[in-house]
Structure formats: structure tokens, C-alpha cells
């Protein structure tokens, strides 16, 4: 293998698995260290820079970072990254004075954002400090989009939403509430906007067209619409027996909300076995803790209506053959079952829908009636019109919408200056040694063996008394202190300088997880088999050095299970190994080189 090119900005970024997995590339180890030092506001600001809504995401993020966390590979469970984010948000002090100043003199460019969801809010957050005038149009009476309408308040309190959305709106965003955009033609023709960002989400819940759907319509609800009505207090009750069709995260919100509206018997009906569920494992656990019954292998057949009122549903009982790789190879119907219900909520997915965008504006739609959007610039086929969030590529989650907002803001900034939207600052990485003395490092390198802390919950007796009692209490101080030490500091990189190495083997002998090997070079696949411990996780790179000066062998590091304890560097007599903190610079609109010089800035 050739020596690893560690100057490529992705190399060390990939070693920080959580940050690499995060769509917004939040600097997780850095904010966890700041929490450990009690610097909560600093930790909050590190978060806010990339994910903009730390308090919200610290409660409801889909946490792609946690399955990626290296801790999950050396021990059973990953660091509770998401809930530590909430710790920073819960304990922060005043932060508004740390936000970038908003220029009094505007740059003369106007941007319209459609929908006041996370994507549009991030566009405003990134462009307001650059002097843009941003207007957000929102159909409902309150901003927040899906964060407010689809996530029940027992998971995400109103106060948290108001604070973090308020921080953006107070930058001087013109927020037009209750203002539904009915025609893109009209907006483009008369709005006087230099750019339009469509962040209108995926507001159309999927329908289940089975016999009895029309007859029982009064008691059959579309999940996301039902949650919306609940969020705005339009509904107050539900029947005693409720069936939820579908087993995604929306289904979990529907079943838990039903319990709080007075339902006694809530069943979530799944077509397939548990390993195929779409809902996150922790959302399933939370629902099951509240005695929601999840019934597997039931495929909806028809709605049963008796005397003009919904009486229940009939399901096919399914059986599946699953092969060794976990795929379904065959399915059979083995019977039929009737399950009584007073209400049925359909939570089988959602789609984006654009009846308000005329099809002759130069905004092309593909065969699924989804707009053609460039995945990196977010520009549609009509220059100056951008899409982000669920509106762009279908339903994802909040953290994706945030990153779409950041990327779209860069494009809008380029577009408004007459620069190509594809001309974007590439990501960069900085390295800085953490060496403080003979055996001292500017980070806590001792491995803590504690297990993942459990989130304390409001008791089952208390939590149903009101619909907006937040179930999760947040980590206590003691829990946070323990949990932060579980982070392995993957951003403190092991950096090797081949020309200093005297091949004494000290690093190899001390490494607790057998990451290091000195061996004759070879092809990657073959080299992986003759390391000190076999490197079977091919998604994790091998770090291969230049030839060593005594024997011409190479130093190979398997990044897979390195716990960044720094013992290799402590044992190295020549400082060929060093522990260096990598700081990934993931550019936003304000970082674009041309940021300060708009052509006609007044």
C-alpha cells in the first residue's frame, strides 16, 4: 500500500466516526470535552455552529452518530451523544450575545424561504449575518414545521422550540405566519426575491386504500395530520381501543400520544418481524415501556364498519422465510385475524407534494413527481430556486434538514453574488499536538470503564396526567460526569512520523487493543490478514506509514478499535507518535472566501 495521505481532509475526519456520520458534522468529542469541563455554554455553541438546534436535537435527533460511535465497537453501547447535547442545552447560560452580529446595512439581496421548518430556519441563520433580507412564509400560526407539528410535546417541550427558533427569528427574519404559498409563479413574478428556498417538508401522509376506508373515515386518521391537529389543540380525545398501522417513528409518536388522550388499549400493527422495523430502537423501547403492544406479522386487509361506525380491522397473519443474511426470501398468509378498534391511525410514511409549483416554470420534476435537485448545491433546474429538508429528497430527519439548509445557504450566497454555485470552499482539517509534558496530554486519556448511563424518566403514573409532561428528565450532574468520560476522544489523532521511528516496538507492545503492527508492506487485502489482530472491519481505514529507516518495513495502524489512550505516544522514545487534535473545518456560507464583497454592497 502507498503511505496514507493524512493531509486529505477526509482521512482524520473519518476516524472521528460520530462526526463523520453526522450529516451536519457536529464536532462531538470537542463538545463532550467542554461539558466535562463544565463549559456548558461553550459546548452549546460548538453544537449550534453545525446543528443550530442543540436543545431540540438533544431530545429528538435520530442520532446517526451513536451507531457509528467507536465505543460501541470496544464495548456494548455507544456514548449517549444525543443526550449529552441536551446536557449542554439544559445548563447553558445566556448565549444570544455570542451569535454573529447582524449588519444594520443590508446587502440588498432578498431571499424567500417557504415553510418555517428546520431547513428554512438554518438558511436564515446562515444568511442573516451576511446582510441578507430573509422572509419565511409559514402556513401555520407558529414556526417550527414538523418539529412543532409532528413531535409531541411530551418529547419536545414548546419552550425549547420557542427559544431556539426565536434566536434565529430575532436576527431580523421577516416571518409571515399563516401565509400559505399557493403559487410559485406568483412568488417568483411579484415577490422581488433574488433567491427562493423551498423547505416545505413532506407534508402528505400516505393513504391506505382498503375496503371500508370511506365508510369508516370518521375514525381513521392520517398519522402526521392527526399529530398536527393535536399540536394545535384541535383534538382532545380518542377512543379506548386504538390501532396504529405502521411501525416507524411517527407510529411511535401516535401510539404514545393516544395513551395521553385517554386510550386504554393501543396496538401497533407491523407487517414484518421486529428486525425490519423502521422506528429507532430507543423509540420502540420508550413506547413499550408505556405498555404499547407491538403486534408483528399482521398485514392490513380491510377496515370493518358496523352500523356506520368503525369496529376494527381485519389482518392477514403473515409468515416469512428469512435467510442467513437476514433477508426475506418468501412470505405466506397463514390465516386471518379481526382486531376491534375505535380509532385507527395510519402511520405508513409520508411524501413531499408540490401542487403549488406550476410545472412550466423551468423547475423540472422526475417521473415520481419529485423535483430534480442537485444533491450538493440543492439547486433545482431553475437557477435561483433551491430545495432542502424533506422537500428535496423525501423524508429524512431534522439533522439532514439542518445540513441541507447550510449547503443551500452557501449556494444562495454564491448565486446572489453571480458566482457559480458549484464553486464551494472544500472542507479542511487542522492538527495540533496535545503534548503537555513527559506523560501529560491536554485531554483526559485515561479509559473509563463505566457503562452507558440510563436516562431517567418521569414515572409511568405521573407522565400521563397532562399531554405535555416531558418524559425524559435529562441526565443528572452525576450521570453527565460519568457519561462524558466514556467518550474516547477520537478526534485526538495518533499521528506517526516515519523518519523518527527507531523500530523499538514500544508502541506495539503497549497498545491495549492491538491496533499497531510493523510488517513488510503488501496489498491492503493481504496486509489486513497479517496484522497483530486481524483488521476485519474494512470500512475503517488502515494507516500505513512511509518505509521505516532501519528495516524498510511499514508501521500499520488499524483505526477500527483504537481507544485514543495515547499510550503509543507516551511509550515512544523519539516522539514518532504524537497525539494531535484534529479540527475539521466544515465550511458554511460565512466561510466562503467571497463573503465580504457583494458586488453592490452599500
Amino acid at each position: 500500500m502507498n503511505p496514507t495521505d493524512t493531509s486529505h481532509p477526509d482521512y482524520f475526519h473519518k476516524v472521528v466516526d460520530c462526526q463523520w456520520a453526522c450529516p451536519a458534522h457536529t464536532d462531538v468529542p470537542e463538545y463532550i470535552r467542554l461539558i466535562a469541563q463544565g463549559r456548558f455554554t461553550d459546548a452549546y455553541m460548538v453544537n449550534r455552529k453545525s446543528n443550530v438546534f442543540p436543545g431540540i436535537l438533544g431530545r429528538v435527533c435520530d442520532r446517526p452518530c451513536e451507531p457509528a460511535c467507536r465505543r460501541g465497537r470496544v464495548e456494548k453501547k455507544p456514548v449517549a451523544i444525543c443526550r449529552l447535547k441536551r446536557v449542554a442545552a439544559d445548563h447553558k447560560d445566556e448565549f444570544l450575545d455570542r451569535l454573529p452580529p447582524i449588519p444594520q446595512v443590508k446587502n440588498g439581496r432578498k431571499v424567500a424561504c417557504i415553510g418555517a421548518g428546520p431547513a428554512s430556519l438554518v438558511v436564515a441563520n446562515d444568511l442573516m449575518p451576511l446582510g441578507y433580507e430573509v422572509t419565511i412564509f409559514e402556513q401555520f400560526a407558529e414556526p417550527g414545521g414538523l418539529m412543532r407539528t409532528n413531535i409531541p410535546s411530551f418529547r419536545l417541550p414548546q419552550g425549547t422550540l420557542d427559544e431556539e427558533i426565536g434566536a434565529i427569528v430575532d436576527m431580523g427574519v421577516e416571518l409571515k405566519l399563516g401565509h400559505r404559498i399557493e403559487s410559485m409563479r406568483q412568488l417568483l413574478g411579484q415577490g422581488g426575491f433574488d433567491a427562493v428556498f423551498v423547505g416545505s417538508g413532506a407534508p402528505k401522509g400516505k393513504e391506505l386504500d382498503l375496503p371500508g376506508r370511506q365508510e369508516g373515515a370518521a375514525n381513521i386518521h392520517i398519522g402526521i395530520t392527526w399529530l398536527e391537529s393535536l399540536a394545535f389543540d384541535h383534538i382532545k380525545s380518542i377512543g379506548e381501543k386504538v390501532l396504529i398501522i405502521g411501525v416507524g417513528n411517527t407510529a411511535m409518536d401516535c401510539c404514545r400520544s393516544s395513551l395521553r388522550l385517554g386510550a386504554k388499549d393501543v396496538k401497533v400493527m407491523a407487517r414484518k418481524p421486529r428486525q425490519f422495523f423502521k422506528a429507532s430502537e430507543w423509540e420502540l423501547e420508550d413506547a413499550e415501556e408505556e405498555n404499547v403492544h407491538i403486534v408483528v406479522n399482521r398485514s392490513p386487509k380491510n377496515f370493518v364498519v358496523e352500523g356506520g361506525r368503525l369496529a376494527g380491522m381485519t389482518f392477514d397473519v403473515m409468515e416469512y422465510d428469512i435467510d442467513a443474511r437476514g433477508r426475506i426470501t418468501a412470505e405466506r398468509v397463514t390465516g386471518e385475524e379481526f382486531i376491534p378498534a375505535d380509532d385507527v391511525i395510519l402511520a405508513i410514511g409520508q411524501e413531499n407534494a408540490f401542487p403549488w409549483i406550476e410545472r412550466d416554470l423551468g423547475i423540472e420534476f422526475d417521473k415520481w413527481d419529485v423535483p430534480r435537485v442537485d444533491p450538493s448545491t440543492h439547486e433545482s433546474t431553475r437557477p435561483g430556486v433551491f430545495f432542502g429538508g424533506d422537500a428535496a429528497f423525501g423524508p429524512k430527519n431534522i439533522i439532514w434538514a439542518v445540513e441541507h439548509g447550510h449547503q443551500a445557504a452557501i449556494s444562495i450566497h454564491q448565486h446572489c453574488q453571480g458566482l457559480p454555485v458549484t464553486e464551494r470552499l472544500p472542507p479542511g482539517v487542522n492538527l495540533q499536538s496535545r503534548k503537555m509534558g513527559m506523560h501529560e496530554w491536554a485531554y483526559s486519556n485515561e479509559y473509563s470503564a463505566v457503562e452507558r448511563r440510563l436516562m431517567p424518566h418521569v414515572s409511568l403514573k405521573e407522565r400521563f396526567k397532562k399531554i405535555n409532561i416531558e418524559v425524559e428528565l435529562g441526565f443528572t450532574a452525576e450521570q453527565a460526569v460519568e457519561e462524558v468520560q466514556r467518550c474516547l476522544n477520537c478526534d485526538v489523532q495518533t499521528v506517526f512520523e516515519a523518519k523518527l521511528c527507531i523500530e523499538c516496538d514500544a508502541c506495539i507492545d503497549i497498545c491495549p487493543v492491538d491496533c499497531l503492527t510493523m510488517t513488510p508492506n503488501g496489498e491492503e487485502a493481504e496486509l489486513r490478514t497479517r496484522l497483530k489482530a486481524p483488521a476485519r472491519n474494512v470500512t475503517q481505514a488502515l494507516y500505513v506509514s512511509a518505509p521505516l529507516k532501519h528495516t524498510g518495513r511499514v508501521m500499520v495502524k488499524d483505526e477500527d478499535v483504537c481507544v485514543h489512550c495515547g499510550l503509543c505516544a507516551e511509550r515512544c522514545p523519539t516522539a514518532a507518535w504524537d497525539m494531535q487534535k484534529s479540527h475539521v473545518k466544515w465550511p458554511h456560507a460565512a466561510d466562503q472566501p467571497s463573503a465580504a464583497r457583494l458586488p453592490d454592497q452599500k
Partner: protein
Amino acid sequence: MTFIPKPKIAHPSLPRNDLGLTRRDYEGALSTLCAGCGHDSITAAIIEACWGISARPENVVKLSGIGCSSKTTAYFVSGGHGFNSVHGRMPSIAMGANAANRDLHYIGVSGDGDSLSIGLGQFCHAIRRNVNMLYLIENNGVYGLTKGQFSASADIGTRAKKGDVNQQPPIDPVLLAMNLGAGFVARSFSGDKAQLVPLIQAGLKYAGFAVIDIISPCVTFNDHEGSTKSYAYTREHTEAVVAADFVPLQREITADYGAGEALPVVMHDGSRVVLRKLAEDHDPSDPHMAYHSVQQHLARGEILTGLLHLRPTEKTEFHALNRTPDQPLNQLPYAKLAPGSKALEKILARYR
């Protein structure tokens, strides 16, 4: 040395030996030697070797005297027995322990000071008695613990860190051991685990006194230009002449070796050491030829490594020679171990 404990976690796919143990189970306390010390690599090689032959940790006895090298017995097989003796007197302790319990693996770890200066007499007599033990000399040519004075193994012309040049001739433990009739004499280098680990395994299985002289650079006092025991010098001047592959009992010798080149030597428990000659002019089975080739190469400034001499000596092993009981003393019935005053009377009567 290091300030944090070594994390108690391991690579998830770390291999296990016949006892179900991983290498980590053969570790000891964290080393307090200088970073980059050759001794730490030797410790790692001992760990690897003990793991590889599936030695029961409770059957390992670690013995040492005084010096940097002698500290290292604390750093491997924490489940074993240990004795840290007076300077240079480790062979006596090993002798006594071995006489009492012949069933254990005896690993003596010593240095060039402990074995070639203060303990030279002890070293020689342990060879004469053919004690069944593995004797490792962690040889760095200086007294590291007292700030780097030349030791008895320093070569003529080698330069100390402060510039002094050594004028006195060295004692070579390999030549000395062959001269005194040792049956297992090897030399290796701390920076070459591929060679060292099988040597340690073969030495542990050898019935009789096995000595390995291991060049182990002192990274603090003897790793500079002008030193003949630095990492760089050793790598440039060593030549492996005999490779030894340890073949455990269960495994068949694979046909990797050409006929005539490979010489399998059966150890007393049935396991084998396969010797491969890497140089034409060195014959490991003949003590006189081996002695001469080592000496000739030394005169040219070349250090031969490998299992330089191997010859079965179980007939003259201490227990065989003294017709001791087959089992350890602690397993003998009390009546046999202490036959009583009448038996003593009988013995004494023979001398009256």
C-alpha cells in the same frame, strides 16, 4: 513509564489459546522502564511465547536479581510465581525452587550486570548443574540503573553517551555458555520478535539449561552513534544463521522445509523445534563448530543470531543426574518426604 493504567479492554477478535486465554491474560503490571527500552519488547515476547505454548500462568515461575532487567518479571504473567533475589544470586534461587518442584516453567530474567559481573559465578554454576530453566540475559552493555557506566559486555571501542571509549574486553555469554557445556545457546535481539518468540518457546520446552542472550538497547544511555548495542548498530551488524521454529505437540510439521535443510529436534514433551540453517558455515548441532563460527564472526564485528547451538542434554539434567523423585516435593506423601528419626539413624550409621 506511564501515568495511566493500561485500559482493561481488548481487541474483540483477539485470538485465544488452548486454555481459552488471550495475550492480555499473560500481562503483568505496567512497566516503569524508560519509553522505548528493549526490555519491554522482551517482556512482550515472553507474554507472546507463554500464550503461544498455552502455559498455565500458575505454572510459570519468574526469577530475577537486581537491575533494570530484573524489574521486568513484574511486567508479565501476573498469575505466576515470582522471586526477586539479591543481586546476581537469581541462579541459586532458581536452583532451589527447581529442586523442590520440577513441574514448573522457570524463567530467569537477568542482565549483563547481574549475570556477567556480580553474578558471573552463579551463572557459570547454573550451567554446570544443568538446571532445567530458561535463562534470559537482557544485554544492553551498560549499567542503566546507575546512569550508564560500561558493563562487562561492552565491546572494545564502544563509546559511552558522554564520549568515553571502552578499552576492556567483553565477556560474551554465548561463548561462555558453550564453553561450559550448555546444550541450548541462542542469541537474539529485542527488536526482532519473529525470531525471539519461537526461541523463548523452544527454551521453555528444552529439558535442561537454556540460555538466550538478547541484545536489548538501552534507549536512554546506549542508543547513540558510536554505541555497539544501539538499535541501528544491532540491525546493521546481526546476521541470523539458524532459524528455530517451535512446533507444538499437536501440530504436524508441514512440508515447508526442503529435505536436508530442516532439522527437527524433539523436546522432552514431544513438541519439536525445527532448525533451519540460514548460513552454510554454521552448524548448530556441533558445539565446537558453533563456538568457532560465533568467535570468527565476532572478530569481524558480526553478531550471529538464532539458536546457535542445540544438543539434547536431558541425561545430565539436574534431576536426572541426582535421581530425584518424579513428582514435586509438595506432592510426595509426608512419610516419604520425612522418613523419621529411625531412617535418619540408618543413614548416619552408614558413616560411623
